[in-house]
């Protein structure tokens, strides 16, 4: 009886840990797929698309995860095949630096305008007083 109990506990623990790792893999998979652009669809991620291309990419990503590749390695594999465009969140490099720096420059430019309009006007207003 004791042996049976131990066996049941062991079985439950193992199956629980298995399902836990499966759900973790599914989580990583859907995170990766949502970050991959479907190159033959208009404005859709691979996760949302059911095109032949997206189905093949889903399969490849699944296989790469099962082989033990991490998120960055999978992105690197896809980047090598299809270029930076396939990833929605591209790396900072010589092709993408404008993409990364432009919002920062716009932010600084906007900040400068606000500074000029608000702070300097305030100072002038105080001086007048």
């Amino acid at each position, binding site marked *: 009886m004791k042996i049976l109990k131990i066996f049941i506990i062991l079985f439950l623990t193992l199956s629980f840990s298995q399902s836990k790792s499966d759900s973790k893999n599914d989580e990583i998979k859907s995170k990766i797929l949502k970050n991959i652009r479907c190159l033959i669809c208009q404005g859709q991620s691979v996760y949302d698309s059911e095109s032949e291309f997206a189905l093949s*990419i889903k399969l490849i990503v699944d296989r790469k995860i099962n082989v033990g590749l991490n998120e960055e390695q999978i992105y690197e594999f896809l980047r090598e095949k299809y270029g*930076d465009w396939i990833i929605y969140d591209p790396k900072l490099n010589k092709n993408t630096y404008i993409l990364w720096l432009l919002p920062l420059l716009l932010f600084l430019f906007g900040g400068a305008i606000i500074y000029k309009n608000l702070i300097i006007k305030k100072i002038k207003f105080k001086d007048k007083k």
Partner: protein
Amino acid sequence: MKNKFNLFIIITFLCFCFAIMYKGLNNSNIYSPKLNNLKNIPIFKAKDFNSNLFVDSKKIFEEDKFYIVNIWASWCVPCREEHSLLMELSKNKSVKLIGLNYRDNLDNAKKFINEFGNPYAQNLIDNEGSLSIEFGAYGVPETFVINKEKKIVKKFIGPINEEAAEAIKLIIK
């Protein structure tokens, strides 16, 4: 004066946007990265179309020749358009054509080959489309030209036409 300057900035900005969008009108919807660095062919194992046995990529590309990898399917209408050009290219002795049968029904694919002819020295089955992804393909038809150093030197997305066939002939000369 200030208003005129602002108007000038706005008009310049709109002209700039118009020019970029107008230029983009003629671009293809499918983005393809430029082959700046020649890419190596992937290492894979695939089922042979006729024998149904697994073959190694090293064995497929072992000869000191140019190779053309053509992704095709019996359900793909543009594949029929390019087939006669592939038949013509297959007559060239310095090149070997490798077919990748993409997500297809094997019986239909065999019917297609019987009806239109077989330009391929070897045909491989890619039922899941994963092999095409390894090559960096988008779908069917797609053609890759591989040089003697086993590097992909040219890629044609969509069916090959007379112009593309001439470009291939120039490469494999």
